[in-house]
């Protein structure tokens, strides 16, 4: 058994520590709101993509409707703050719980469907959810709602959101890492490789798929709430925008489906890229480009950017088989 001090000196560990220090100190150096805003978006997307990756990457159940959980989180927070005056911290968690409950209800039914049909069912659910919210007048209908702002000086108002989203992102990554190494993780991989065989081997596939789906909805529910409170405004068109689902897919596939590092790479790369692109070319050209990237990656680099290292030949020699093989 290796002791902690040796473990600390491993390159991977050193890099992680360096990254943590960098993220902690970042607001002290770059205190302009703009940089913090970008970082907050990166953290939010890391949470979204890492969670999507649990049923999507590990179990092979691609969801086109993950925005639903994000949107429900936002609306739970909006409704609880505006209609009942409840403190934000509680509403964020409630948002996660509402999303998880929805995942339990929907997952139990829809996860019997396989592959493409599950994907379409999730899309259907997300669009239906958007319609329902749009038609509830108490939630502001299509206009949406304004949320009270955090009463901090403008100079510091982004700081709590920065550390908040960073914390959630770290927790999400850690939990996904733990799941990856756990029995649940192996069972999900077995489902991805061959669901019929997994079932024949005595794995209660539906149960584990639903568990994965619930976990994967909880975190988007939380960041959906934080995002709503951060932006200070929610409406169905933007909080339930299919764009979130599209972004999640592109980021996950670009980074590498079914890995822990892939979503982090994908989220970071695409948030920065989309910022650069929104200055240079319009939003629509950006989405055309995303579409092209999505097509090219699935055709030529199905395991994502993270697999480049393995393609060249890593020392670890451990090549993860992706279901896109």
């Amino acid at each position: 058994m290796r002791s902690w001090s040796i473990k600390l000196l491993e390159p991977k560990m050193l890099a992680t520590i360096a990254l943590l220090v960098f993220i902690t100190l970042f607001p002290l150096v770059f205190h302009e709101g703009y940089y913090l805003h970008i970082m907050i978006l990166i953290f939010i997307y890391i949470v979204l993509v890492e969670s999507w990756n649990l049923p999507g990457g590990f179990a092979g159940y691609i969801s086109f409707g993950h925005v639903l959980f994000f949107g429900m989180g936002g609306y739970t927070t909006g409704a609880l703050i505006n209609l009942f005056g409840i403190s934000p911290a509680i509403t964020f968690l409630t948002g996660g719980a509402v999303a998880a409950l929805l995942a339990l209800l929907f997952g139990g039914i829809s996860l019997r469907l396989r592959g493409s049909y599950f994907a379409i069912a999730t899309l259907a659910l997300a669009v239906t959810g958007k319609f329902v919210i749009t038609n509830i007048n108490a939630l502001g209908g299509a206009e949406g709602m304004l949320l009270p702002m955090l009463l901090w000086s403008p100079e510091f108002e982004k700081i709590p959101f920065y550390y908040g989203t960073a914390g959630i992102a770290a927790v999400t990554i850690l939990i996904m890492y733990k799941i990856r190494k756990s029995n649940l993780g192996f069972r999900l991989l077995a489902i991805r490789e061959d669901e019929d065989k997994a079932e024949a081997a005595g794995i209660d596939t539906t149960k584990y798929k639903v568990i994965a789906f619930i976990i994967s909805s909880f975190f988007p529910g939380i960041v959906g709430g934080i995002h709503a409170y951060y932006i200070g405004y929610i409406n169905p068109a933007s909080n339930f925008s299919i764009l979130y689902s599209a972004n999640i897919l592109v980021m996950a596939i670009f980074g590498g489906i079914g890995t822990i590092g892939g979503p982090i790479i994908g989220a970071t790369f695409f948030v920065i890229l989309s910022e650069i692109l929104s200055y240079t070319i319009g939003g629509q050209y950006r989405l055309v480009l995303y579409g092209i990237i999505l097509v090219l990656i699935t055709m030529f680099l199905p395991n994502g950017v993270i697999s480049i290292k393995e393609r060249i030949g890593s020392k670890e020699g451990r090549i993860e088989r992706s279901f896109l093989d």
Partner: protein
Amino acid sequence: MGGVYAVMASGLSLIFGVTRVTQIAHTVLIIVGCYLSFWLAGSVGVDPFLSILITVPSLFIIGALIYKLIVSHLSKGPPIATLLALFGVVLIVENMVGILWSTDYQAIYSIYQGRAINIGNLGISLPRLMAFGVTAIAMVLLFLFLRYTETGRAIRATSQDRETAQVLGVNVGKVFLIVFGISTALAGVGGSLMGIIYSFYPALHWQWMGVVFSVVVLGGLGSIQGAALAAIIIGIVESLTSFFIGTQWAPAVAFIILLITLMVRPHGLLGAKEERI
């Protein structure tokens, strides 16, 4: 209304039935049909119903290209890879349409606008009646093509048993290419007709996706007769919903029917029961 849904959905059903590909870019290609007719009617001055004669071959080519350039290369991999690549196609096409024609609402103006034929007290709008006529023609042509031509027989053989068809000398790759072309051409017909009846904008295809997929799933995957039946059912339920509950709920109907069908009877009304999806 159900008639147009039938044309929109039959292409999707055909693609699934023969190639087993879930063509999620189908509805965005219907939008392309809309805009092509809009452009032909507005800038060139072609009668919108005649413009169908141009949208059909154009969309056939687009469909064939999507198969040739993307889908055929992914056919060896799992279906999910194709699905993801087609999601990329959705993003490309939707936003290209938005760049070319803006994301605003558009409508095709034609001489048929606002005209109606009165049968007793019942007024039937002329464009809708003509649209129904066109869908009937398209469906009959599709049926005759599949039934009586050599290619049609090859398509049906491939849909029943791909391996055996291949052994018997059917060029499966060519069949798939033609199926993608025909299905996308049907999307073009549906698009031109939708454009004549309704106003439209590029992102509308997400809503149609609900309609078209619920038609296909309700009818039974791969069953074109089922799709026609389901299209009429969904058209009627939608009309009833907008009449009794409120127009704003009508777009949700299709999605709710889709969800219920997937839960209760995933093989649809006329689909093969043993099919595991």
